[in-house]
């Protein structure tokens, strides 16, 4: 392993993030606060407790997941698309690095940024609602795994995208609906039976459910299933990335 190269890519990407740290942080903090005002205070005051938890607290894990997933994807997809777009990718291709090192650098940086924002949102949440985290280690595990797996997915999107529209397409058309329908703002058990069944095909449901379990100790699906789901998703992304690098798809002519 060329660890110096991994570190260089990682540090370079993180420097980009810290250059615009204010923008990077203000927007998630602001939107989370808005969610709390709208969902937590305005709507939440009319909603009964969900599974024994106040609605304001109930949506915290979903809100964090929502931001972490979108941030992971956009950071990672942009991170690798940008060098392709402006042509600096030649340097990656001509450097003595292999695919694993490139992925570690870019995905590592994208996941770190997303994690950072997830933590900021959690801190913001403490200002609005009372939460105690029942399984902190699992909470961190789920959070980190989510950052990594969706950054891997973002990396794939960034490699695939041929223009900026395509870069936005997958997050907009697939990821956002899946996340919103994944139980960020409700419990799956609140849905009519048909929709409960359909929801089980949404991978994000397993993530949010597992994450919420780490907070409150109750879940829509068994925790083991959640772990398998996220592990499976990570493995799938890794396999796709492995294939991309073996074939040079969309990067090396």
């Amino acid at each position, binding site marked *: 392993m*060329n660890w*110096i*190269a991994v*570190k*260089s*890519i990682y*540090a*370079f990407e993180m*420097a980009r993030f810290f*250059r615009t740290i204010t923008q990077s942080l203000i927007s998630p903090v602001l939107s989370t606060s808005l969610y709390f005002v709208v969902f937590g205070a305005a709507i939440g005051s009319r909603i009964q407790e969900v599974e024994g938890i106040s609605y304001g607290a109930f949506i915290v894990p979903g809100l964090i997941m929502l931001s972490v997933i979108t941030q992971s994807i956009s950071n990672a997809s942009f991170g690798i698309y*940008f060098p392709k777009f*402006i*042509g*600096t990718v*030649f*340097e*990656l*291709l*001509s*450097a*003595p*690095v292999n695919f694993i090192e490139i992925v570690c650098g870019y995905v590592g940086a994208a996941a770190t940024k997303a994690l950072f924002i997830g933590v900021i949102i959690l801190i913001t949440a403490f200002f609005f609602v009372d939460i105690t985290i029942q399984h902190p280690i699992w909470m961190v595990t789920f959070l980190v795994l989510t950052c990594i797996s969706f950054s891997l997915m973002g990396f794939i999107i960034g490699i695939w995208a041929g223009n900026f529209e395509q870069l936005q397409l997958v997050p907009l058309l697939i990821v956002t609906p899946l996340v919103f329908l994944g139980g960020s703002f409700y419990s799956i058990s609140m849905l009519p039976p048909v929709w409960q069944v359909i929801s089980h095909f949404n991978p994000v449901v397993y993530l949010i459910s597992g994450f919420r379990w780490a907070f409150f100790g109750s879940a829509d699906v068994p925790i083991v299933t959640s772990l398998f789901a996220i592990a499976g998703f990570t493995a799938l992304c890794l396999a796709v990335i492995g294939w991309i690098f073996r074939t*040079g798809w969309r990067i*090396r*002519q």
Partner: protein
Amino acid sequence: MPDIVKITDLRKAYADGFEALKGVSLNIREGEILALLGPNGAGKTTLISTVCGITTGTGGSVTVGGFDTVTEYRGARSMIGLVPQEINLEPFEKVISTVRFSRGLFGKPKDDAAIEKILRQLSLWDKKDSQIRALSGGMKRRVLIAKALAHEPRVLFLDEPTAGVDVELRRDMWNIVADLKASGVTIILTTHYIEEAEAIADRIGVIAHGELLLVEDKDKLMSRMGKKQLVVQLTQPIDAIPASLASDALTLSGDGHALIYSYDTRAERTGITKLLSDVAAAGLVLSDLETSQSSLEDIFVDLVKEDAA
């Protein structure tokens, strides 16, 4: 000098089926400056890209410093620096951070002294904290060179380093190349300026239509093909060359007004003195003398034309 780069029967067909390299074989000697000439679309960039790992060849093999560029790419690529034809740089990065990044990417530990030396050598030190977008085109090209040199490569590929660069900067660039050569770096550069190849290269290669038409020492090439001509203008036209002057090297111009004598500047005797005294002896009166030497440009144009025919 041993060969540091060995290209053997290298082929490259792009995804659309177009064959940009049709079996190129070329050995590059350690420490030399090799200039690659060729018309637009000849395959110069493709050749460089394939050696550097930006594209994958579809046939043949390349070794750099004994490392195969495909199976031992780490060893091979560590030795190579590449300055691409296009100016590809991140506009918002600082000069020094982008150069440091290049060094790290090639696995070399941080070394600020080495970076400073490179930036000073390229007259970029006072711009080290500027954003790339605030630099002129010539400076940007030098930043690309600095990035390529950041990991102290043994072989440097310069793809049209002086395209769109003014005369003064071009001279600067030549000096930089000469300095690099003096420090032991092997340099392969492509150019459309033949006088550039003439000025700095040790050897010259000519590529057209994906084939290497020739590689030769510049001086040999010039002397082999660069015959010199002496044109002797006569006050009175003549019908034929007088028998006393007859020789293979001498021809008469179409209008009979001039004698054209071809000779080799490097030969021990050019025969000019004898010719001139013979001309006087034959009773011919000279009005003017003129010499001309075919330049690399003529040679190049002839070669490429021949190839197209």
